[in-house]
């Protein structure tokens, strides 16, 4: 059950240049939310900007009864958000959307993330660990300064590979290049499941590689959203069968193979 609620800011801090981690008291969400789901926040107390802003759930802290979001300050909404301090309240809808599917038989998750698309990865890893699955994370960013929350990514069962476009850390290139290079590690195909989250161009580039990988991939998408709950039919993406699906309610997680990245 999703709901509209007013949450207290438990903590708020910077995790990198222009990157913030926002922790919200939201006990009800902790048990209700699954990795890949998102919340829809009011950033203004008036109408500027008008819409809510969607953010993936970055992690949940069961002990503290909080959810964490990580976000980049890029426009007016995220700038207003960045000004909130501990004790302030924020109006939130959530958890929204359909989470990653972690059911069924796989032993190792292959996670490809691009930029801030990595936001839901720590929550995903936590869920995988609880199920005793292993994970390989491939994370591509433009430059090393964009890396954040690396501690949350590392841990039991998890190995992590970084790609930077400018070569300031790890592999020089894009996450898709990195995946190509490591593909032999997953050549058996069996026992793997792929999870991709990042901007559209990355997902589009990944699609053929994923198809060739021999194991199934889920992808989490981002689209401009108004309602966030499947009502306005605005945030659609096209499927290979030519039908439109809403990212907010039918997604944000889709079967990567079914997406139609027309250009």
């Amino acid at each position: 059950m999703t709901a509209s609620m007013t949450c207290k800011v438990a903590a708020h801090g910077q995790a990198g240049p222009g990157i913030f981690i926002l922790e919200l008291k939201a006990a009800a969400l902790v048990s209700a939310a699954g990795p890949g789901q998102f919340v829809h926040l009011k950033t203004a107390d008036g109408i500027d900007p008008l819409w809510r802003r969607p953010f993936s759930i970055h992690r949940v802290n069961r002990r503290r009864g909080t959810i964490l979001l990580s976000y980049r300050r890029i426009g007016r909404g995220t700038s207003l958000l960045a000004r909130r301090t501990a004790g302030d309240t924020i109006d939130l809808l959530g958890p929204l959307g359909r989470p990653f599917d972690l059911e069924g038989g796989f032993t190792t998750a292959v996670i490809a993330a691009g930029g801030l698309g990595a936001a839901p990865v720590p929550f995903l890893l936590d869920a995988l660990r609880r199920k005793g699955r292993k994970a390989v994370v491939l994370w591509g960013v433009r430059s090393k300064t964009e890396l954040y929350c690396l501690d949350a990514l590392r841990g039991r069962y998890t190995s992590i590979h970084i790609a930077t476009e400018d070569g300031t850390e790890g592999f020089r290139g894009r996450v898709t290049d990195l995946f190509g290079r490591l593909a032999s590690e997953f050549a058996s195909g069996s026992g793997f499941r792929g999870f991709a989250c990042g901007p559209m161009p990355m997902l589009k580039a990944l699609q053929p590689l994923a198809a060739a990988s021999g194991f199934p991939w889920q992808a989490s998408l981002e689209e401009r959203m108004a309602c966030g709950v499947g009502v306005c039919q605005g945030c659609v993406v096209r499927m290979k069968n030519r039908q439109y699906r809403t990212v907010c309610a039918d997604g944000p997680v889709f079967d990567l193979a079914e997406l139609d990245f027309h250009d």
Partner: protein
Amino acid sequence: MTDLSVRIGGLGLRNPVLTASGTFGYGTEYAGYFDAGLLGGIVTKTVTLEPREGNPMPRLAETPAGMLNSIGLANVGIERFLSEKLPALEGLDTRVVVNVAGNTAEEYAEVTSRAAGHPRVDAIEVNVSCPNVRHGGLAFGTNPSATAEVTAAVRAATSKPVIVKLTPNVTDIAEIARAAEAAGADALSLINTVLGMAIDIGTRRPLIARRTAGLSGPAIKPIAIAKVYQVRQAVKLPLIGIGGIMRWQDAVEFLLAGATAVQTGTLHFLEPDGPVRIVEGLRRYCEERGIASVSELVGGMIEESS
């Protein structure tokens, strides 16, 4: 205790707040957020004869105090609407208005007769004002005789109340309103969205695939108030005011301008339970001022400025 009930073309409403077409799904999507039985009624997403996938993406853009949409009447079609969507509304203790559209007057009539034939449907709203489709929609609503033709066809197809939804994208809305009145409409609702457009200067591409789209939200409220006021002078029919309502104060403004009821749209995207809060605000406002019936407010603007 204030009496919040109003009558729209023979249809009694518990209170004057309805949800606008296309902003409340098929009536159940917001079920988790509040009880739709608290509202005067709900208006469904526009239903057409055949299912429609709607317009290409992107379909949405945010603008100053407003938004553009180009959904393009994406809907499941009357068949599935009747079999899948309406049954879910059975339990709802509120008025259900089905919004209809078609490529021809005959299509409007056919969707109407099928929808209105269902006992759960209380009234029909005729969408001759969608800016986001090539046929039907605006092409009808900007022309008095085409508006009359569609209205008459729908009128002939049902004995339930017929509400014609007007577009603001015309030189003279009074003329269109009179045409709808003469052709047998029981009420008018206004306004549908205002034609608008936005360009992403980064990519130099339109922010909406179909380029022009429909503007809604607070930005258009003054336009909507002016149209309600103009139409109020032109026809005797009850009016339903729509456009940029965010707070109960906005609803009062529409009533004073001449609307008997209002619909909220874009509001839902910011506050799913917004319409209920508007009902509560209206009630409080009336009670504090000793207004016995909310309908006393209708057309209650004093013509002279202060």
